[in-house]
């Protein structure tokens, strides 16, 4: 099967998914919790930015915005996993597997659609942050932040797609959502890594998302840090979860989905 089949399947699946998003305003649901956490943390915890040792130049609102943005795009990926699980439950995925000339294109299709959703939810969070007076001091470095957000979205989508194709039921929701939530929260959410304490500091140091979060915050402040490690981790996560999604697709094919 040639590449034409791969891309035509991908674009067909992406087109259908994007159409489904725009036909239902609930597609912005992944933005709810990030928006809410942003308002709650950036609004209620501003004084935490005055703590000795809190050295993020762009301020506490910007500090929280980056986490909310990455959460929004990650949850966009998770929700795409829920959509895939729904497609398996309602029988659409079975017909899709029978009709697709190149089944790996299905994964790419869902990923493209997830990027569209992630972009829209990301814009929503950014719009709210700008409304609350967040400074944008990163200049061209902001493209680095966008690049990391794309990698986080794609990695979360591929993880969610893998779980959804493996379990093929909407009850897979918590299995997709919980690990993503844990990875996001077991990181320097409220204060920089040097101000964390106890077991949380140890776990946050081991959590690969911490490096991505630090680099993303650096881009926004115009002082990029840990850029190469962050991109290396992002690309590695995408590669690992792409293999995971392909493995799950094979299992779905064998199960006759």
């Amino acid at each position, binding site marked *: 099967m040639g590449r034409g089949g791969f891309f035509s399947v991908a674009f067909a699946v992406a087109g259908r998914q994007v159409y489904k998003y725009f036909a239902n305003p609930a597609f912005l649901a992944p933005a709810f919790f990030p928006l809410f956490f942003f308002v709650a943390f950036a609004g*209620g915890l501003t*004084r935490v930015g005055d703590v000795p040792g809190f050295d993020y130049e762009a301020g506490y609102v910007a500090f929280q915005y980056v986490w909310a943005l990455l959460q929004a795009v990650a949850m966009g990926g998770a929700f795409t996993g829920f959509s895939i699980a729904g497609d398996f439950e309602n029988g659409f995925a079975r017909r899709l597997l029978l009709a697709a000339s190149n089944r790996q294109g299905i994964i790419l299709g869902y990923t493209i659609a997830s990027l569209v959703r992630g972009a829209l939810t990301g814009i929503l969070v950014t719009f709210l942050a700008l409304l609350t007076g967040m400074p944008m001091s990163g200049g061209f470095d902001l493209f680095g932040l966008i690049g990391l957000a794309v990698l986080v979205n794609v990695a979360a989508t591929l993880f969610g797609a893998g779980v959804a194709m493996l379990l093929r039921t909407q009850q897979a929701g918590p299995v997709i959502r919980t690990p993503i939530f844990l990875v996001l929260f077991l990181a320097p959410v*409220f204060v920089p890594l040097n101000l964390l304490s106890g077991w949380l500091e140890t776990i946050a140091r081991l959590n690969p998302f911490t490096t991505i979060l630090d680099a993303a915050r650096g881009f926004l402040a115009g002082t990029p840090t840990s850029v190469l490690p962050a991109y290396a981790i992002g690309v590695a996560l995408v590669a690992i979860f792409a293999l995971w999604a392909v493995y799950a697709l094979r299992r779905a094919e064998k199960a006759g989905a």
Partner: protein
Amino acid sequence: MKGPSLLVQVTSLARRSTLRTLRQPAVMVSAILFPMMFFAINAYGLDAATSIPGFPADSYLDFAFAFPLVQAALFGAITAGADLARDIESGFFDRLSLTPMRPASLLLGMLAGVVALGLIQGVIFLAVGVLFGVDVKSGFPGMIVLVLLTVLVALGFGGIGAMLALRTGSVEAVESAFPLFFVSIFMSSINLPRDLIEQDWFRYIATANPISYLVEGLRSLVITGWDAQALLLGFGCAFAIIALSVTGASALLRTRVAR
């Protein structure tokens, strides 16, 4: 034919309500583990906040201890509300109204189940908290008051869950209210004392939010000892929420029975 007394009816339905919750491992895990997880993350993630001048506690672990108690009450309310809505959806409620059992017993039984779950959660959280180093300044009597206030908070939220269930008769509608409850907890003084909240708009919302007073009442027992004002406001708010929600639920129950 004369049916069993209201007490017997309520006891039977409370037992059913409690057992139904206890037999759902996923619900119990969510009700116990999720609040503890958020508590642990907040306690260690925001420990640096104790160095803000004027912060009322030396340890954020102590300061944050009200969080799992209030969040657990919220989970209990959603679970109980969803169970009541399931009874309406499945026709159990209609079948019950054909028996000598009084409809009020279903509501009271459900609320008794909420109280039982709140009590279990309060005791478990207190035990785990003390084990991990939470220092309750008001001592053992304070711990009893802490659990009592937690149970009242659970009852108040349970009444709101019952109102939602009786108004909508839909499990989905009750569960979709979860984010609203969750938002209301965070838009309070749960993470910082109100006088240390810098943003005026957030401080106004937190001051108007009754959950702030429930949190501050619970928190005072842990970080201060016996603070009469905080406790009066906490218990006052809890009783006000119970009165409003149970009255509202009773009115909605009468409407539903009349249909």
